[in-house]
């Protein structure tokens, strides 16, 4: 007996992700996550040493 599995689009998928290859979706998620991480990291590095200059922000 052979079991055949057919792939269907999940009903709860929204318009943006419907039809998108899972590998591409992973790349997109990773890309935006990495941009967010790099931005936070860069802002931390540049902003923290100037806390004294810019005033008591905390």
């Amino acid at each position, binding site marked *: 007996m052979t079991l055949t599995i057919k792939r269907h689009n999940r009903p709860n998928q929204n318009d943006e992700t419907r039809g998108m290859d899972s590998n591409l979706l992973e790349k997109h998620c*990773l890309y935006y996550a*990495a941009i967010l991480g790099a931005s*936070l*990291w860069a802002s931390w590095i*540049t902003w923290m040493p100037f806390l004294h200059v810019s005033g008591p922000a905390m």
Partner: protein
Amino acid sequence: MLYILQKKIQALLPYDSRKHPSKSTTTISHTFAEHNTVITIYVVGPMSLLFLFRVNRTLRDDKLSQYARKMVLIVLLSVQYSTLVVVRYDTIKGFAHYFFTAMTFVSLLLYHGIVSNRGAHWMVDLIKPMVGVASVLLMCGFGAMISFVTDIRNRHTYWTMCCYMEILALLLLGSLDILDIYVLGLSIQS
């Protein structure tokens, strides 16, 4: 010459720090000690996101052997821990701080040296080594100034230069990741 440089550097600051010595620019490590709670909470975000990105790059690199991948993953894990040790400058000072700072810096350079780009891009291949070398030189300059210039905190020109060098060195190190993100963006487009 040094006077002109001093004026140029101080022009970048919101106001002359000599008039307000308590509000002068300081090194990143000193801000760790003074604003530790905020930084410890804040740094978890960028650290986790960049860790996710670096691990993914390592696992997807087909040119690396299984052994090399495991080793790089161990290096990346050690970067997470050593960064947290560096951040806790309020309690972990002296040799331990310098050791873990150097370890984090070298480990990240090692990771960038070992893991190759998913898709080769001539511009990235050219810029990446240059950025890496510039980052190392600036960090060495920062370390040398901190170690060899006597009473550096009270010498405003040297101190400000030293702080800028540290910031620039770390920004250049971070820009290696930004180049990787750029390559990922290109692979999405193609």
